[in-house]
């Protein structure tokens, strides 16, 4: 099955990049505002189109002075401001060269890219000029600027290369021709028109222009439409709100380019008044439904999500107010199939969850089917517009998107695996925590951290090992150190096991589960840690928080309830008393311990013997006594030691008593 492309006049109202749209706009109205310059603590100031072109000319002069500047040469372009990236990109293009846009500015990334390029473009001044060698701070005078012949660019010429992470973790460079970029910009203009009219519109961004989404929506669209853009991204909501309100006071409506990380963390207050924001884009990952709802209220505008990738550009869009399903962009053909590429055309009804394939003019090879590493499901429902829609079901490879950045789990694992004492590792996106990774690390028993300080030192060591090669967001936040991976009978690391390993994050009454072993149905040994966030820790801010004895008894009881002896289990209602309870030493937050429980039957009934110990020695031991079924649970002794005493009366600590 396939989604037929829409036929439309997609190029209406927008000028292609290959026709040097920015020069055309500058000729038509040189004094119109091209860019609003942001200065911390100051109101925004306007740069005209002529001002912008003067900077582009100055950068061309800079390029002309470089021996490495040859037609077709690659320049590494990393700028923190949208304005800086804009003027350099246009200069590189007008000189017939191409830009390589790294996704981050870590020294390793830049060094690797410099090797395959003519060099790296230097940082611009805050207002977009080349830094002056004479430090005078004055922009070059107009007489120095050699007029440039503005020759249209060939549509099939390479415009730039974007950098992303492949599934093995190897960095990939994805080249884009002008025709690919122009095709997508035309579709954006068709779906979400921007107009350079008297009652103006302006583009505000919260994301980096170094990635495809920010580049297209926040930088190239303003250049094609003549709509002004803000000189730098408003990363935080208060910056966004201030910019919107100032621009609104000048009669502008804003198109906001944002991300799920930011939209999901908007404050509870109003970020923009009604009418100030035209629309908001979000891309990089699906936006949680509740966040989409709140963002529409806080920004008083539709939140439009774009689904896509560096390789494919945009694929589909949705507004969650209208439903969770995605609609393919016009010109994007989709197929849902797990068959190989050759067999696609013979595919009949798709299976509920299949791989997503697409064909679009935004692709390097527009007539070939491209396998997208996402699972998808076609919606059966028919929609009014006749389009079919689909649901996304997550990636089919080992890449995850964290705060819009593509992170290879394999690469994180490989790096951690090189550390001494790490035997095996699984790195995973946290099921209940957006943008966070967890790591499950297998170590030899004597290498395991045994208390707060050793655990913290080990985590710091592992994070430091990752820092040179990964962006901060890729560093796992939650760590579980185990002696073996909790695999199921089929050898799979299941979502149940993952949920157990991280259950203490959501339930602060639980010990941190790190595995268990059993010699039979009547015996269990739990491996666990005392989380620092355990709610039972006495004295939140006290010098020495510790696990109360009653909590150790509760954990022993909870473990004991899972034991079986000849088909019998203990019955909570038949608890009689505690016997031979000893608290031998303090159990402190961060300590790793084992809790052993055995169910036996003797002449008095069922009993659970338990022992809680750590590398520091024994912490607690004793018995929980239960009457056998049939006997009255309300015996004389159960009045003295009712089950509730387990949670209400902590037994005295032996240390405290002595």
């Amino acid at each position, binding site marked *: 099955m396939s989604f037929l492309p829409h036929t439309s006049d997609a190029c209406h109202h927008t000028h292609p990049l290959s026709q040097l749209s920015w020069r055309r706009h500058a000729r038509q109205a040189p004094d119109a505002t091209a860019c609003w310059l942001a200065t911390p*603590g100051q109101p925004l100031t306007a740069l005209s189109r002529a001002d912008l072109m003067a900077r582009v000319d100055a950068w061309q002069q800079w390029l002309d002075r470089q021996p490495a500047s040859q037609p077709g040469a690659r320049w590494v372009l990393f700028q923190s401001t949208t304005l800086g990236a804009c003027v350099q990109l246009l200069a590189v293009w007008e000189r017939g060269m191409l830009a390589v846009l790294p996704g981050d500015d870590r020294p390793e990334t830049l060094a690797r890219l410099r090797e395959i390029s003519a060099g790296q473009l230097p940082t611009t001044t805050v207002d977009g000029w080349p830094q002056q060698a004479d430090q005078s701070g004055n922009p070059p005078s107009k007489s120095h600027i050699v007029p440039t012949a503005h020759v249209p660019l060939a549509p099939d010429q390479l415009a730039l290369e974007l950098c992303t992470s492949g599934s093995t973790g190897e960095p990939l460079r994805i080249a884009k021709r002008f025709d690919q970029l122009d095709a997508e910009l035309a579709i954006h203009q068709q779906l979400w028109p921007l107009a350079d009219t008297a009652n103006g519109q302006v583009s505000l961004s919260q994301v980096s222009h170094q990635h495809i989404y920010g580049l297209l929506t926040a930088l190239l669209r303003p250049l094609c439409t003549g709509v002004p853009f803000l000189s730098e991204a408003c990363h*935080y909501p208060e910056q966004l709100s201030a910019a919107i309100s100032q621009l609104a006071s000048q009669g502008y409506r804003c198109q906001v380019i944002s991300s799920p*990380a930011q939209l999901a963390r908007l404050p*509870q*207050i109003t970020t923009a008044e009604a009418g100030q924001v035209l629309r908001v884009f979000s891309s990089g990952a699906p936006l949680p439904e509740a966040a989409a709802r709140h963002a529409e209220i806080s920004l008083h505008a539709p939140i439009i999500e774009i689904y896509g990738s560096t390789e494919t550009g945009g694929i589909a869009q949705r507004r969650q107010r209208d439903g969770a399903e995605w609609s393919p962009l016009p010109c994007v053909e989709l197929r849902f199939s797990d068959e190989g590429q050759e067999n696609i055309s013979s595919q009949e009804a798709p299976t509920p969850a299949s791989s997503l394939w697409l064909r679009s003019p935004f692709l390097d090879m527009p007539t070939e089917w491209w396998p997208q590493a996402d699972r998808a499901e076609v919606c059966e429902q028919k929609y009014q517009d006749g389009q079919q829609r689909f649901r996304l079901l997550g990636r089919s490879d080992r890449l995850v998107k964290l705060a819009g950045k593509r992170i290879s789990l394999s690469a994180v694992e490989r790096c951690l695996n090189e550390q001494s004492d790490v035997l095996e590792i699984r790195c995973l996106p946290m099921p209940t925590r957006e943008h966070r990774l967890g790591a499950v690390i297998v170590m030899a028993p004597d290498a395991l951290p045994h208390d707060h300080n050793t*655990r913290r030192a080990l985590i710091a060591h592992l994070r430091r090992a990752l820092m040179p090669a990964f962006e901060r967001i890729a560093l796992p936040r939650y*760590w579980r150190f185990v002696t073996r991976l909790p695999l199921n009978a089929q050898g799979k690391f299941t979502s149940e096991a993952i949920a157990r390993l991280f259950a203490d994050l959501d339930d602060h009454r639980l010990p941190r589960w790190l595995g268990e072993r059993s010699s039979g149905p009547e015996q269990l040994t739990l491996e666990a840690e005392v989380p*620092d966030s355990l709610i039972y820790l006495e004295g939140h801010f006290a010098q020495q928080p510790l696990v109360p004895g009653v909590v150790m008894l509760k954990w022993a009881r909870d473990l004991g309830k899972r034991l079986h002896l000849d088909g019998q289990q203990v019955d909570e209602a038949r608890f009689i008393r505690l016997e031979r309870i000893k608290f031998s030493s303090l159990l402190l937050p961060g300590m790793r311990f084992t809790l052993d429980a055995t169910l036996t039957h003797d002449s008095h009934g069922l009993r659970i013997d338990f022992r809680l110990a750590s590398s520091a020695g024994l912490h607690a031991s004793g018995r929980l006594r239960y009457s056998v079924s049939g006997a009255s649970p309300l015996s004389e002794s159960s009045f003295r030691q009712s089950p509730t005493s387990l949670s209400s009366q902590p037994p005295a600590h032996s240390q405290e008593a002595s």
Partner: protein
Amino acid sequence: MSDTPTLELELKQLIIDTLELEDITADDIVADEPLFIDGLGLDSIDALELGLALQKHYGITLDAEAEDTRTHFASLNALRALVEARRER
């Protein structure tokens, strides 16, 4: 008498709880060490979360006009100064 030591502990706990730093206790946060660069190794998502928590707990609405507001997040001391100056509850 100043309530600074109490506020300091309160803020440490706010950071730990908000950002779910499971291997960090209040004692591990040094008042004048950077929170974001080395120190706790926080990232841009944490900066957003922390801004939300300040609004929720202290009624502080960060104001972009004032200056680069996130410099208040440089260290615990800077954060404490912000809360002392701007808290509404």
